[in-house]
């Protein structure tokens, strides 16, 4: 499977990918995007199985990214990895078509728990 990790912090993208590997998902291939615009380009040219995106990013935010993907008919599985993890945020995320929200800081177990069903 091909997983796109979107975050404006390169260190955070590395942490997410490392945690995915530690959680036993190392067989998948990982792509990275540093902002919403790059992510949209990537989604347009690559076949992806999952997008893991930050919420708060400059210019195109994670929520806008999801909304634009859905508006363009792209139904790729989408989850947020964000410190904006209030109930309101979760409700907005789900309404926009996200499958899950992982709160920062997270652990390997969180990833196993949330992604276990998605990434088999």
């Amino acid at each position: 499977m091909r997983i796109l990790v979107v975050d404006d912090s390169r260190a955070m993208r590395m942490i997410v990918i490392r945690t995915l590997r530690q959680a036993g998902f190392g067989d998948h291939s990982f792509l990275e995007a540093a902002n919403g615009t790059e992510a949209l380009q990537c989604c347009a040219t690559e076949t992806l199985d999952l997008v893991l995106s930050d919420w708060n990013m400059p210019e195109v935010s994670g929520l806008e990214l999801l909304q634009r993907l859905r508006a363009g008919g792209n139904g790729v599985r989408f989850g947020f990895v964000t410190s904006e993890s209030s109930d309101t945020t979760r409700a907005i995320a789900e309404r926009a078509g996200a499958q899950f929200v992982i709160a920062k800081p997270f652990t390997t177990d969180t990833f196993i728990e949330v992604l276990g069903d998605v990434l088999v």
Partner: protein
Amino acid sequence: MPELDEVVQAFVAETYDALEQLASDLVALEREPAPGVLLGRAFRALHTVKGTGGSLGYGALEQLAHAGESVLSALRDGAVPVTQPVTGVLLRLVDALTAILTHIDTDGHEGPFDPAPLLAALAAAHEPPATARRDVAVHVPSPTGAPEDVAAPALGELLVQRGQTASHDVTLAMMVQGEGDARPLGEILVNHGAATASAVADALQRQAEARRCAAAGTVRIDREALDHLAQLAEDLTTTRDQLTGGLAGTPGAQLAGAVSRLDALTDALVDAIGSLRQQPVDSLWTALDRVVRDVAVECGKQVRLHCEGGDVTADGRILDAMRGPLTHCLRNAVDHGIESPGRRAAAGKPPVGMLLVRATEAHGKVVLDVVDDGSGIDCEKVAGAALRTGLVSADHLAAMGESGVVSLVFLPGLSTAARLTRVSGRGVGLDVVKTDVEALGGTVDVLTNPGRGAIFRLTIPRRLA
């Protein structure tokens, strides 16, 4: 020193950049009537420090960044007005985060930093304005309350190098520390009168700069530039194969053609790699706002900084080495050039002094001009000081033109005599600017129009020889 985890390295590098931008945004905030965009970016910077730092287990960073977010929220919601004390506390936060980061950069740990006082100041800053106003930040222009155990020897070295303290004083101060004095080395030196506070602040800043440069040892490469390199390498390989494979029985003309292609390709490759090192000059500028703000606050002046020509490019290593000299010229211009609001008013000038940093490209060189609209340089005072300190003879002086006399400000030793214009106490003179710039293969010049201002011109090569 243990090798740092690559994620921590990436975190340190990106966070140094983010904090530098944050400091610049906070300074801009003080004069921005519609601060929404700046606040948004500042908020996101702290948010990232909190999220990424927290994920890496850096609790103090996470806690401090969170407290800073609360202050920014209050500013964004209009609950607290943007005032100099509030931005002052936020700048102290940036200093503290930078200091912790410097420690992480050294050994992967946050170091023995006590966040409590700053957390209290941040909490006070987003209470109602009356409370915040009492908390006037006393600002020390040093980005590091650096971990002294690690920093001490290097700090002493930096001071000795510039003749700002004697090496036996550093040894003494370290002995005092060894006997259980917990104070930082710099403080001991200052207390014993072995170094000036500003020399120590300056050395700390240079130390942080050096660390940051080391952390910034990674370069981002444009994809197109990389493709271009790959293409050149491929062409080289093809040409080499033509040469080696077809040597036997190849007509001389074809051989000569391949050789000249090889020649051209090699040159192109060298050129392409050289241009990868080129970076826009504006990478230097993020830190300048803060420098000007700090010196202006310290000297009771009002100064507005403009930067022009940021898209001019030069070798990134040259630009890194220019941070120090450029910073000194700006400090000098604010401290010695620009007058106090009162004196400006008396001279019929607007109260806010103008400072312009302008980069232009000429004949393969980058020209950095630091232009101020202050009092200019008084040739007679410079000449008098040079005579008194014995730097030049009266005959020599008489033979110099006016511009020659003005250039005397770059002589070592005159900087102390320059106290006659104003007490600078920086401990570092323009002679160091000259030495540093010339070490890069550049030149320094100064032009002045007494009463109207001065231009310090630093001309540097675009590429390292």
